[in-house]
């Protein structure tokens, strides 16, 4: 039996970064945030509430190890910081209670809201977080406190994992999916289901009908953005509106969603996937101050 040639189209680049302009040794409070999600893990280090360093990796099978790895990688980007220099670390995400070096666990919903408040400013009122497995629509106040939230229920699929499956099947690198989905003459009708399980069959069905790969991507992005739109309408979208999580990097979804909403989401230079970890580190600072 012929072996399938294994190219990993879904794989996105893992990164780490540090702000060389900051001298962490002068900082008073150094806190960490680690977001161990279903698909990816992020770590950030903050110095007196300023983003100093970060890393973004794929989550491995062993979540404590993923937490250690991602934090180590963030530390590597720094100017010689050690784990013990971090005074207080908050874990978040699916693996939040399994971060071996954390002092507290807080859910990613609270952390994303708080992180978005930092990344985009206090005017943020609605956060749409699109992660590997869950969709979350969050309403927040000017401090980044959650007022109310919704998470996907059944048939509300259309997540990062589904996008990976599609990228793999169509052999399109995942970072190109958004771009290519706009490279069509006319927007095709959305696919009928975004369920991860049937994503493949849906795509094959479209190709059978004579769709080009780009058209198929457009139909999928369109369905997913519509699904997200329906869900976010449930929490009342109030401006300013931002999108966090891995899918925020896919303009095929983001721009279609903005079209449905008739709103633009705020943009920032900070990696959208870091929102949860940033929120966690900021909570870490408050908790550390309180404990002193």
């Amino acid at each position, binding site marked *: 039996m012929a072996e399938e040639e294994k190219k990993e189209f879904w794989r996105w680049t893992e990164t780490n970064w540090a702000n060389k302009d900051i001298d962490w040794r002068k900082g008073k409070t150094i806190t960490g945030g680690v977001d161990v999600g279903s698909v990816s893990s992020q770590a950030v280090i903050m110095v007196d509430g300023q983003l100093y360093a970060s890393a973004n990796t794929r989550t491995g099978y062993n979540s404590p190890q993923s937490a250690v790895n991602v934090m180590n990688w963030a530390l590597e980007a720094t100017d010689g910081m050690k784990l013990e220099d971090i005074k207080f670390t908050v874990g978040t995400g*699916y693996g939040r209670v399994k971060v071996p070096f954390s002092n507290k666990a807080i859910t990613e*919903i609270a952390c994303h809201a708080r992180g978005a408040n930092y990344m985009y400013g206090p005017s943020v009122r609605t956060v749409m977080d699109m992660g590997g497995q869950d969709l979350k629509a969050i309403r927040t106040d000017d401090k980044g406190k959650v007022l*109310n939230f919704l998470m996907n229920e059944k048939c509300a699929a259309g997540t990062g994992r589904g996008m990976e499956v599609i990228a793999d099947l169509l052999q399109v690198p995942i970072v190109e999916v958004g771009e290519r989905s706009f490279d069509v003459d006319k927007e095709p009708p959305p696919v009928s289901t975004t369920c991860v399980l049937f994503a493949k069959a849906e795509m094959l069905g479209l190709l059978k009908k004579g769709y080009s790969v780009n058209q198929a991507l457009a139909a999928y992005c369109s369905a997913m953005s519509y699904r997200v739109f329906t869900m976010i309408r449930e929490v009342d979208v109030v401006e300013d509106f931002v999108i966090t999580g891995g899918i925020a990097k896919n303009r095929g979804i983001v721009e279609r969603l903005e079209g449905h909403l008739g709103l633009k989401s705020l943009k920032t230079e900070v990696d959208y996937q870091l929102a949860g970890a940033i929120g966690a580190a900021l909570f870490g600072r408050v908790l550390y101050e309180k404990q002193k």
Partner: protein
Amino acid sequence: MIEDFKKIYENRHNYMKAWKAKNPDWKVLGYMCSYMPEEILYAAKVLPIRWLGGHEPQNVTEPHIMGMFCPFCRDVLAQGLLGKYDYCDAIGITHTCKHINQAYESMILHRGVDHFFIPTPSKMQDKQALPYYAGILKIFKEQLENWTGKKITEDDLKRGIAIVDENRRLMRQVYETRKADNPPISGLDSMYMVTASQMYDKQEVNKIIADVIKNELPGRKAKNDPGIRLMILGSEDDDTAFINMVENCGSSLVIDDHCTGSRYFWNTTEPGNDLMSVIADRYLKRPPCPIKDMPNRTRIPHIQGLAKEWNVAGAIVIQQKFCDPHELDKVAIVNGLKAVDVPTLYLEFDVTVPIGPFRIRVEAFLETLGSEDLF
């Protein structure tokens, strides 16, 4: 002892088998919905016990129930088809919803059991419902008499009413204690108490509850720190794993509106001359299942009242997946609670619920209720 409720719940079949051996002059009737007029059954020396699910994966109901029907009817039917309730001499339902009708029909078709169907009215608020339902209950009484071969006298009925009302009064008393800042009994144990009352002889359970009220609850604290006070409401719910998880996340469930909870026992019978009317009236006036709550929405003020009296910070609204009656009340209930500043978390239950993904939702909800100290 409070622990006894859990024992009964967890060993329901063993308890009942032992009970049956000791009470050969009684019959046992299994029912599915909390509208079953248990007074008449106690009067007839037929022990009513409620069939609840087993909360375990099964693969026997698909040939009988369509995929869009609720997990409760599926789970209950599975238990029946697997013979778990074979000690029941009959099954009975009151008309509530088609999903339960389906489980009932399938039991009759495939297990050939003796069965009783009570065509309960749905528009319980209507003044015409009382004469109708009293008449229907009289027919039911006669059917029971034919089945057991024994006349049901006025005294029998009075005795039946007394047993069931005693149970209701006692449980209401326990629920009252949960108004305390630090309640003496947890939401989980309260759920065990109500479900034990449904699945075992009330005469026995009443003794336990009376003892708990007198000897155990005074001065007791269910937890050192009760955490955030929550209400839980919605459809049938005896998902103890879920309840346990919620109470372990830093909260206490202090009040509920479930048919496995307060809806089942909230009101007692009111005095009157015609006992069938007295019994019928009690069911027409009880806190309704959404399907019976029309044309007016009486559930909303009732639930708002519970939320206020038991001083809750938030409410978890659950429903059995695909349960249309509860889905039809969802928006109204969520808005009704919002109107009195009670935030809600909405969740759908299946035969078993995935604890991990649900925990995130619950923890995040609790964070929104009490995370001021993080800002």
